[in-house]
């Protein structure tokens, strides 16, 4: 689809909600660049460093008692990686690039950009567990554990950098439960919403 002006779609998501897949689908439908953790590859290439070092600390909360901040400078690898990604996103947005971004506090980092449309995708626990069991090939118990762990990390990570709490509907344009319409149906609804917004 041909875009007349910049379009940035940010998608926050619960683990197992299918938010990542929906984001990929929307990127395809609108012909946009898709950024998730692969963004680190681009950063690593630009900075001429090993991407594996960066990936270790991606979207993780900083470790309490092992981090210190002095005059705004932090030793925390997690915090420094997060800031590298935030700077990357701001740069891309300032350059006028259109893209879809998953996570990384994008709804807050890019909130000043008038062309940003932000979503938060959640899901029913049962669906999230089943999807995780299928995708990761793990038992129900393991899936529940994975869900709890990942969501706890995402929440801590997000809430460290943003005033509005992770998943709080007031922080996003739209919050949607993917269990109601299924992944494709949810993507369709979000596509419609985006089309209406960009037609304004």
């Amino acid at each position, binding site marked *: 689809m041909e875009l007349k002006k910049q379009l940035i779609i940010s998608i926050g998501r619960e683990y197992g909600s299918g938010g990542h897949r929906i984001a990929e689908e929307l990127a395809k439908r609108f012909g946009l660049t898709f950024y998730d953790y692969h963004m680190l590859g681009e950063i690593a290439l630009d900075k001429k460093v090993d991407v594996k070092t960066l990936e270790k600390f991606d979207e993780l909360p900083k470790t309490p008692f092992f981090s210190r*901040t*002095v005059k705004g400078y932090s*030793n925390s690898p997690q915090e420094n990686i997060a800031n590298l990604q935030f700077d990357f996103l701001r740069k891309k947005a300032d350059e006028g690039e259109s893209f879809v971004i998953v996570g990384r506090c994008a709804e807050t980092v890019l909130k000043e950009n008038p062309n940003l449309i932000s979503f938060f995708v959640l899901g029913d626990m049962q669906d999230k567990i089943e999807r995780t069991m299928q995708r990761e090939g793990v038992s129900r118990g393991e899936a529940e554990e994975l869900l709890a762990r990942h969501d706890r990390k995402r929440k801590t990570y997000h809430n460290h950098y943003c005033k509005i709490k992770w998943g709080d509907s007031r922080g996003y344009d739209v919050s949607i439960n993917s269990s109601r319409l299924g992944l494709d149906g949810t993507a369709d609804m979000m596509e419609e919403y985006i089309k209406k917004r960009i037609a304004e």
Partner: protein
Amino acid sequence: MAAQIAAVLIFLVMFLLIIMDKIERHIITLGCAVVTMVVVFGICMHSMTALTETLNVAQIFTRGFWYTAGEASESSAGINWATIIFVAGMMIMVEGMAAAGFFRWLCMTIAKAVKYKVIPIFITFMFMSSILAMFIDSITVILFLAAVTLELADLLDFDPVPMVLAEIFCANLGGSATMCGDPPNIIVGTSLQLTFADFITNTGVLAGISLILVVIYYYLIFHKELRVKRTGKVVAEYPDPKSAITNKTSFAISTVIFLCAVVLLVTHAQTGLTVATIGLGIAIVTLITSGKNIVKVIKGVDYKTLLFFIGLFVVVGGLEQTNVLKLIAEFIGSVSGGNLYVMVAIIIWVSAIASAFVDNIPFAATMVPVIQSLAALNGVNISTLAWGLSMGTDIGGSATPIGASANVVGMSVIAKEGHIVGWGKYCKSAVPATIIVMVVATVGIWLRYC
């Protein structure tokens, strides 16, 4: 007893909040200072004297605060205003120097002098880091040195991480050599009326010997890594050091002020000028000569650090007034059985281990009254314990990424360019270097003073 418990609790809460890193440090210490004044001095002690002694404002209006005329002035408890005025003065001077492009010019001049060869740059930058940190706070030294190292790493195609790690360590080491190099030393020096010459002939000698060993150590562990070309690119053009100078007149003035500050500090025992006078003097001269940059220079002053110091001294004053620090001194005295060897070892190693994990400034401020009591109780020379405390707090902080401010700043500066250094990588090189210096300091103090 209630006052002692309250003072200890406030102190522990302050330390915990500082470590948790959720609230800005100056807000924590100022908040705890207010609680100390109200709860410890007011509710528990009903003592106006304890409050006025801790606030220590009267000291500023004494002649001895500004001019000692060859005689040591009385040691005083509470807020160490000399430290605060001196640190503020140095901040103003450094702001002026940075604005004129002094630090970048110096780094580039040295790089050019060694013909932009990586290993000679590595070695000379380690020495430069130490020497600059003897007179300027290590955060400023690392801020500029790390930035130039990144620039040179990009130009000359080497990995900047080993070089910055070595520079950070050497900055902390250089800071231990002088009275004005590291905040713990300023606190120790001004509290115990020690001079610049006292430091340079004692901790300076230990730091000098250690520096040679540390440079050899870092060369041995990093030289192979530094010789590896990252991308194989060819250097197009070398930068001209002169391009770093933003304003020739400001540059000349700030260089002269810096050299004057060094001379005044080196000779302050002879001239009788205290560090507070020197700090105030260089601040005034810097501001007068800043011209239209005056607002920028004033704005650059890190007032949060100054407020942090003020709050900290009040909280430590609470421990002092309630004799808690005396109890700690008695405990160390009884553990060591009055043996100076053991006392020195405890001071150095406990200070080092504590400083590796917690801010060394509150630790040093707390330990100064402890070593004063320890010396008085056991008839030991206070300066022997002071050198142990200085070396322990200054160098212990080098062992971990959070031990000293320079470490945090250095890690952060290189991280902005994608060079992420975790605890494992940092400690792998820094812990052995710290142990080398601690052994030199312990053995050196034992041989010379015990």
